[in-house]
């Protein structure tokens, strides 16, 4: 109970600070719109070649996971600023749970992602996507889980490096293989065999495939099982890492 309360206090503070910054609100809303409106038409002719019935049912899940991952990867940068201003130390000296300090921040990122996901899915439907409601719900939940995991990892990384200059290249180094090997924009199945084998080791590929399956209504696939397992595992791992960093002396 106190944990929820403490997380909420941190969450509310974060949201309040972000809402004070109109650029943040605008970018948050525009991101999914731009992706779908500017990027969708570009991919549409290509997607038709994969033998997918509906291009948007293919596109939206990929964009959803991409939004979840990449938006969240950058969540930690704000924390470095907070650390520099002594905010993290001031929070750490209170009796509040260390996990709450992290979860409050994650909740903000997940809430932001949720709003973006609603816009993306809504717009997708408007543009002709067809997907079962239950599948969309599960797909969005998976996305939120991945987003939460990435945000937790990003926050942990931020407090470990304590420097934007160190953190930015690390994030880039992680993002490149994730983007290329997870089949977000193009399905891995059109690649050569060796590339597919390599991508088998990319957890995010399974998650992207899982979200695609929920959108097409295939609930019994092994991808969905693996994707869900990976999403839960990554979230648990990242949460544990983040808490350890907040707890660590000298953070």
């Amino acid at each position: 109970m106190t944990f929820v309360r403490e997380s909420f206090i941190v969450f509310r503070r974060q949201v309040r600070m972000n809402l004070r910054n109109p650029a943040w609100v605008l970018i948050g809303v525009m991101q999914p719109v731009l992706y779908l409106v500017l990027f969708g038409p570009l991919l549409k002719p290509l997607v038709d070649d994969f033998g997918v019935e509906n291009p948007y049912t293919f596109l939206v899940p990929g964009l959803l996971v991409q939004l979840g991952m990449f938006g969240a990867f950058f969540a930690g940068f704000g924390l470095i600023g907070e650390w520099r201003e002594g905010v993290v130390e001031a929070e750490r000296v209170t009796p509040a749970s260390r996990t709450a300090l992290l979860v409050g921040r994650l909740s903000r990122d997940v809430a932001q992602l949720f709003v973006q996901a609603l816009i993306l899915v809504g717009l997708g439907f408007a543009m002709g996507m067809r997907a079962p409601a239950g599948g969309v719900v599960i797909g969005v939940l998976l996305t939120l889980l991945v987003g939460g995991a990435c945000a937790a990892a990003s926050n942990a990384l931020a407090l470990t490096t304590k420097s934007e200059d160190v953190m930015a290249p690390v994030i880039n180094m992680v993002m490149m293989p994730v983007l290329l090997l997870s089949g977000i924009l193009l399905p891995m199945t059109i690649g050569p065999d060796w590339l597919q084998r390599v991508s088998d080791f990319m957890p995010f590929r399974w998650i992207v495939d899982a979200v695609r399956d929920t959108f097409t209504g295939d609930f019994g696939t092994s991808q969905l099982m693996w994707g869900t397992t990976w999403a839960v595992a990554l979230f648990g791992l990242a949460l544990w890492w983040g808490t350890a960093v907040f707890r660590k002396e000298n953070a």
Partner: protein
Amino acid sequence: MIQARGLVQTFTTKQGRKKVEVRAVDGVDLDVAEGEVVGFLGPNGAGKTTTLRMLTTLLRPTAGTARVAGYDVATQSKQVRQSIGYVSQAGGVSSYARAGDEVVDHGMLYGLSQAQATASGQQLFEQLDLRGLWQRTPKQMSGGQKRRLDIVMGLVHDPTLIFLDEPTTGLDPQARANLWEHIGRLRSERGATVFLTTHYLEEADALSDRVMIIDQGRIVASDTSENLKAAVSGDQVDLEVADPTRLTDAAAALETIADLVEVDGQHVRGRVSRAGRAVPDLLRDLDRTGIELASIEVIRPTLDDVFLTLTGRSLRDAEAGPTDQPVLEGADQ
């Protein structure tokens, strides 16, 4: 209220390729009783902040133990945190958040309700002369106003054990006096225990029952500031003699009450313990023997004097450090 035994904190930092170990705190023992106000004095880099961060559970001691408010800092950190208030040297308010919101959130993390935190915060804003700044962001405040906001943050939950790390940096004399009064009230009205660091002997003097001096991670003295000053160096008495031919007579007269008498041009100087009592007699003496003075000055010993006698180094040398350590990456603030 606070008991520490053998507290040690070492930091490892990279100096080029090789790792260097910095012993920031090197075996500190300290005891602070309930209701006591203790001033923790020392030059830059002496280890004050590091000691405070260990006592406030922000930093795990490399060695040694500490009990704060009856709880062990290493194993019962949550209870310790619940029992204390802490104002860090660098402050902890985001530049872009409204002051009032930050104070209320901070209070709520200590378990206060929103209404309680608001009431307590607003009362502190009144008391520390921050009226009308509730809605402002620290970015729109002066340095001294920001510092007082930091102090409000540390006091919003009404702690009875308070750690203040250089609370008066950046405050003008009036704000400083106001804060001193406030700290005095905390103690007299609420029986609070206060542990504060400072660079100024006069501040430790005005506020604290006891002064502890730390140098290179070790406590070198712990006593009332009166005793430290009296025992350690005494006051400097400086006589400017009008007639140069009477200099030796004046020196002889001063010698009767002073140590380390020296003559320097028209001036005769010496160290006198509790000069306030001894000087009236000296003046009568000089008058009787017809030695005319152009001026007389009594200079209270400064921290530098106390420090010099305790460590054999002046404060300025101490700040440079024995090995002239370079600026360390990742140091606090």
